[in-house]
């Protein structure tokens, strides 16, 4: 190793050290503690010595209700991700390739605005919009006075609406970045070669924006699968998720080890999905 190499290594260490130290301290340590907790037979709050057990993981397999909750959570994550993509991608496309100058800044502000309000306030505000006779109903009655009440609050669509509202900016921003990176001359080349708008989008623009689509999907799918606040506030009994079950174990029944086990099972399921999807996605993005 030359002197320059050694100095280089020192620089890299100095630049990345703080970030990795912080990540180790704030993510790795608590997570390891929680993983250990999931194998204990008593909650760490109980002042008695605890022993190791696999009981909580076995409980997940034995009780179909938790498997059902897991499936519902994954389904909810998928639906929210797809909705964000369907709503967010066209907006990102317009922002990246059509809207220019000041208008783009103004539109961006509107996209980022949800981030500036408190998540809890944001979610509760939806209850006022979606409840029977709420703002949504009133708006519809202005257009169609005879229409039946929507009655969306405490339903599955309400949960999806709340989650999409929370996570849509992630999709718009990641897609925007990858669409923005597509050189206009590449698009012009495709048009000069005879591609109409649809072929241009399907064969050039969309494939080239896949990194943004996947990054946004991952950023949304993972927290949406684990969501518990929106399902509780907007879904009532209709929006049961595994995230809510986890929360319950920690806050209501005080069964920390079982809550921890459930959350690690969820983490495992999400990791497994990512692991399965990664190789084909990587193949499609070769060369980008």
């Amino acid at each position, binding site marked *: 190793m030359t002197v320059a190499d050694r100095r280089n290594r020192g620089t890299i260490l100095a630049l990345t050290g703080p970030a990795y130290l912080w990540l180790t301290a704030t993510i790795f340590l608590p997570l390891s503690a929680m993983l250990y907790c999931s194998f204990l037979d008593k909650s760490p709050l109980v002042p008695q010595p605890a022993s190791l057990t696999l009981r909580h993981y076995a409980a997940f397999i034995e009780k179909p209700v938790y498997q059902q909750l897991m499936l519902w959570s994954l389904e909810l994550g998928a639906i929210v991700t797809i909705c964000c993509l369907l709503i967010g991608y066209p907006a990102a496309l317009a922002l990246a390739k059509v809207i220019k100058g000041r208008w783009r800044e103004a539109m961006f502000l509107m996209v980022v605005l949800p981030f500036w309000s408190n998540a809890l306030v944001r979610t509760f505000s939806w209850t006022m919009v979606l409840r029977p006779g709420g703002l949504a109903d009133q708006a519809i009655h202005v257009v169609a006075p005879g229409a039946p009440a929507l009655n969306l609050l405490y339903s599955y669509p309400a949960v999806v609406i709340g989650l999409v509202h929370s996570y849509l900016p992630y999709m718009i921003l990641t897609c925007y970045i990858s669409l923005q990176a597509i050189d206009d*001359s590449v698009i*012009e080349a495709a048009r000069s*070669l005879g591609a109409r708008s649809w072929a241009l989008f399907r064969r050039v623009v969309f494939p*080239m924006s896949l990194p943004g689509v996947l990054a946004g999907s991952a950023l949304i799918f993972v927290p949406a699968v684990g969501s518990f606040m929106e399902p509780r506030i907007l879904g009532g009994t209709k929006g049961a998720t595994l995230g809510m079950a986890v929360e319950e174990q920690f806050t209501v029944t005080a069964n920390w080890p079982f809550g921890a086990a459930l959350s690690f099972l969820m983490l495992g399921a999400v990791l497994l999905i990512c692991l399965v999807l990664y190789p084909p996605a990587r193949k*499609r*993005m070769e060369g980008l």
Partner: protein
Amino acid sequence: MSAVVVTDAVKRYDAVTALDGVTITFREGELFGLLGPSGSGKTTLLRAIAGFVTLDRGQVLIDGQNVGGVPVHARNIGMMFQSYALFPHMSVAENVAFGLEVRGRPREEVARRVQEALAMVRLGGLEQRKPKQLSGGQQQRVALARALVTRPKVLLLDEPLGALDRHLRQEMQVELRRIQRQVGITTIFVTHDQEEALTLSDRIAIFDFGRVIQEGAPMEVYERPVTKFAAGFLGEANFLHGRVTSLEPGGLARVALEIGGAASCRLKGGQVGQSVLLALRPEKITLSTEGEAGMNAVRGNVLDVVFSGNSTTYRVAVGEQVMTLFRQNLSQGTVAPGSDVVLSWSSDHLVQVTP
């Protein structure tokens, strides 16, 4: 093979006039260079022919058909970009096949024509590579194959060789010329490199401020520039101010030069007493250490001498002006700075230009 005719093309962007009444006929099968400084309108014209720019006034005719309302994808043009603009997620073969596939050609035909196109640009064997895995010269060839595989009516090249280093650029110039001849396609290219324009083109047009200053074969434009800008942009030139003193019956005029001495040259019209501007290329001037000033010969003093291998550049003070001349390095050796010299030239090489 098609002719492209542009008539009275005008394009304005807010305060800037990119094209200010351009009329050019691009003949069938010729390689035509659009030359000019940046912002002179040459790229706007190329993009208007492609269909990316809508003209405010004027027409573009391809094969005699007005393509004003025809969208880019339906114009059947081949275009090559300075950045190559290859599709990074597609292999070389997929890049070349793109134009045929969006036209819905059958699979066997696509495969065959992709092979032919890649063979033509000498890239056989690299079909499965991604653009990132190719060198700049190879990417250039893929871009050319992709633009030609659909057998377009006209090939448009935007600064085609601008991104390559000097050696590769010369190699690609030869290659481009060979392929263009082989296919026989009407080709229009934009460049700001005068040497490239002179080497490649059958004909060139010089642009300035959205107008065509001069159009013609490279040698004709070089030897007979019509304006001071054309003479100065394409190669180097000395500009001599003078006043017509007499008109001879043979068509030659005598001009008293501002730097002292007299010259004779052919004028486009003109009368006695009129002031004229004459351009004189540096390589047309003969330098000698003996002789007298007289008709087409002026006395000067060498300011500096730059030796550059095959030739030497002299800067010579003549009156209040500095004249530049190139001298081939035969066997005479160089003349030292400070020497008194006589510069002379032939009447044929003095060209009257408009200021």
